C-alpha cells in the first residue's frame, strides 16, 4: 500500500477499526458510529471549504475587476473569513414581526441540510466514499431539487414582498434548469450502465488504474450544458436572479441577518462546490490521475471548475428573466434532446464489448474510436445548434430593427402632419 496515495483510505480504515473494537458487541452500532463520524468529517470539510472559498472568490473577482480584495485581516487578508465569521456570530438575530416564525427559522437549516447531504455520495479516493449508492446520480439530482423547498420557505416565511418575488423566480429557474441537467447526465449514465458515482469513475479509468478517457471527450456538449445548468441550479452569477440586489433588494434572504444569513451563504457555496465536484466526477474522471494522489487530483479538478464559476461571476452581467427562460427552454433543452437521441443511436451502433455485439449486434470498436465518433457527433451538434441560434438571432434582430424603423417613419409622418 502506497502510504501517500491511499492516505484517506488508511485513515478511514484505522478509525473504523478503532470504532469496531470499541463497539465489538454490536456491529450495527459500530456501523452507526462510523457513519456518524464520516458525516461529521464530510460536513466539516464542506464548511471549511466554504470559509476558504469566500476568501478565494473575493480575491479572484477583485483581481478581475482590477481591485485588491480583502487585505486588512492578517497577511494578505487571509484571516478575512474568520473576521466575517465572528461578525456573523455577533450580529443581532432579527425576526420580522409579521413572519411565520416556524417556517422562517427552519428555512436556513433546511437549505444547509440539503446542501451538505450531497457530499454523502461523492467518492474522494478509491474506497473513500460516504456511501456508494447504486442510484447516486439520481440522488444528487433529487437532493438538488430539495433546496427549492428551502428557498420557498424563506420567501414565504419572511412575509416580505421582495422575498416572495425572489422565491417565485427560484421555482421557475431551478425547476426549469433541472431538465437540461438531467438530460445531460443521461449519456454518462448510459455509457457507464450504472448510476453509481464510483462506477462512473471506474469507467473513466483503464483496467490497471491509470486515467482513461474522461467523459468530457465523449460528450463535450453534455459537459458544457451541465456546467451551465449547474451554475443556474446553484443560482450563481450570471443566474443570480433570485437575489438580484438591484431589482428585488436581495430576494429571498432579504429579512435574514447574522447566523441565519450565513447559513444561506453557506448553502450557496457548498452547493456550488458540490456541482464542481460532481462535474469533475462525471466529466473529468473524478479522482483518476497520474503521479499525484487521487484526492489531490479530485480537489485540483474541482478547484479548476470552481475557478470557471468565479471567472464567469467576475465577467458576465446578470441575465434578464426572459433571456434566462429562452436560453433554457428554446436552446438547452431541444439541443440536449437531439444530442441524447444521436448519442444513444451511436452508442448502440459502435460498442466496445464483444458480449454486447453478440447480444444486440453492432460494430465492435476500441474505446478510443468510440470516443472519437461520439466526440465528433457531440461537437457537430453543438456547433450546428449554435449556428442555427445565431442565424435565428440575426433574423429576429433585423425584424426588430425593421419595426423600429417603421415606427420612426410613422412618428415623423405624424409630426409633420
Amino acid at each position, binding site marked *: 500500500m502506497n502510504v501517500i496515495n491511499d492516505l484517506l483510505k488508511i485513515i478511514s480504515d484505522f478509525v473504523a477499526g478503532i470504532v469496531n473494537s470499541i463497539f465489538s458487541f454490536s456491529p*450495527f452500532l459500530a456501523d452507526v458510529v462510523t457513519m456518524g463520524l464520516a458525516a461529521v468529517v464530510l460536513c466539516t470539510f464542506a464548511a471549511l471549504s466554504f470559509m476558504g472559498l469566500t476568501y478565494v472568490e473575493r480575491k479572484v473577482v477583485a483581481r478581475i475587476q482590477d481591485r485588491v480584495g480583502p487585505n486588512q485581516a492578517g497577511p494578505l487578508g487571509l484571516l478575512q473569513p474568520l473576521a466575517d465569521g465572528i461578525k456573523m456570530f455577533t450580529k443581532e438575530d432579527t425576526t420580522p414581526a409579521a413572519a*411565520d416564525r*416556524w*417556517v422562517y427559522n427552519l428555512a436556513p437549516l433546511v437549505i444547509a441540510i440539503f446542501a451538505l447531504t450531497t457530499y454523502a455520495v461523492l467518492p474522494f479516493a478509491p474506497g473513500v466514499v460516504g456511501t456508494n*449508492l*447504486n*442510484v447516486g446520480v*439520481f*440522488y444528487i*439530482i*433529487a*437532493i438538488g*431539487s*430539495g433546496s*427549492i*423547498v428551502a428557498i*420557498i*420557505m424563506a420567501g*414565504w416565511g419572511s412575509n416580505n414582498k421582495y422575498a*416572495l418575488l425572489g422565491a*417565485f423566480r427560484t*421555482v421557475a429557474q431551478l*425547476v426549469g434548469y*433541472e431538465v437540461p441537467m438531467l438530460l445531460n447526465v443521461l449519456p454518462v449514465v448510459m455509457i457507464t450502465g450504472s*448510476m453509481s458515482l464510483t462506477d462512473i469513475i471506474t469507467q473513466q479509468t483503464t483496467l490497471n488504474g491509470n486515467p482513461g478517457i474522461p467523459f468530457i471527450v465523449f460528450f463535450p456538449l453534455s459537459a458544457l450544458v451541465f456546467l451551465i445548468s449547474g451554475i443556474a441550479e446553484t443560482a450563481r452569477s450570471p443566474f443570480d436572479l433570485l437575489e438580484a440586489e438591484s431589482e428585488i433588494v436581495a430576494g429571498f434572504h432579504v429579512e435574514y441577518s447574522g447566523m441565519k444569513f450565513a447559513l444561506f451563504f453557506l448553502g450557496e457555496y457548498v452547493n456550488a462546490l458540490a456541482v464542481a465536484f460532481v462535474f469533475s466526477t462525471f466529466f473529468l474522471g473524478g479522482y483518476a490521475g497520474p503521479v499525484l494522489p487521487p484526492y489531490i487530483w479530485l480537489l485540483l479538478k474541482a478547484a479548476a471548475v470552481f475557478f470557471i464559476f468565479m471567472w464567469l461571476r467576475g465577467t458576465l452581467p446578470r441575465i434578464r428573466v426572459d433571456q434566462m427562460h429562452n436560453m433554457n427552454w428554446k436552446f438547452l433543452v431541444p439541443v440536449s434532446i437531439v444530442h441524447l437521441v444521436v448519442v444513444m443511436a451511436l452508442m448502440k451502433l459502435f460498442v466496445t464489448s464483444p458480449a454486447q455485439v453478440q447480444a444486440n449486434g453492432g460494430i465492435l470498436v476500441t474505446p478510443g474510436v468510440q470516443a472519437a465518433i461520439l466526440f465528433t457527433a457531440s461537437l457537430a451538434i453543438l456547433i450546428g445548434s449554435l449556428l442555427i441560434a445565431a442565424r435565428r438571432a440575426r433574423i429576429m434582430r433585423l425584424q426588430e430593427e425593421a419595426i423600429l424603423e417603421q415606427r420612426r417613419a410613422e412618428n415623423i409622418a405624424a409630426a409633420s402632419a
Partner: protein
Amino acid sequence: MTIQQVLFIVIALAVLGSAVFVVTTRNLFRAALMMIAAFFGIAGLFVLLDAGLFAVAQVLIYIGAISILVIFAVMLTRGMQGMVPRNSQATAAAVTVAIVFAVLLLLFGPLRLTIDVARWPVLSLFAANTSPRDVGGIAWTPPGQVIPPVPDTYIADFGRSLVDLNQYLLPFLLIAFLVDVVLAGAIFIARQRRPAEVAEDRQLQAEEEAEEAEAMRRAGALPGPASLPEGAVASTSDH
C-alpha cells in the same frame, strides 16, 4: 424488536403525525410543508424496504415537483392565507374514508389471510373462485419466513419492464402521450399571439356579432343595428 422495526415505527409515526397536521391545520402553506415532511417519511420507508430508486424518485417527483406546484397554487390563490375553512363534514368524511379503507384492506390487503372467503358471502362476490392468497395486493410474508433480498439488478429490471410489451409499455406510452398533450395545450394557451392573429380574431368576432344582430333584426326583436352601415363593422376590426 429489531432495529428496523424501531425505525419503521418512528418513521411511520412521523408520517402519520405530519399527515394529521396536514388535514387539521388552518394554515394552508404550513399544511403543504408538512405534506413535504410526510413525503420524506415515505421516502424513508422505501429506504427501509431496500428500494433506493423509489426513495429517490419519491424525493424528486413528490417533493421536488408536486409539492412545489401545490405550494405555488396556495401562494397564487388570493385570500388563501387568511381564509378560515368552514367545513363541518370533516368527521363524516373521516369515518367514510376509514370504512372504505378498512374494506379495501380486508379485501386486498395483508389482513386477507385471516379471513375465510367462504364465510363471507359478500366477499365471494369479489373473489369467488380464488384462494385468499391470490386476491392480489401487498405480498404477505408469514412470520418466520425469511424475506428474499432485493436483487441488485432491480433498477435494470424496472427499466426493462417499462419498455416490455408484455408489462408496462402501454401505460408508459399513454402517460407520455398525456404529458405531451398537456404540455402542448399549456404552450398553446400561454403563447404570445402574433398581431395578425389578434386582428383576425377580432374580425371574426365582429362578423359574428354583426350576423347575430342581423338575425335578431330579422326576428324583429331588435330594430336598432339595421341602420349601421357596412363600414362601421370593418372599422372596429382594425383596432
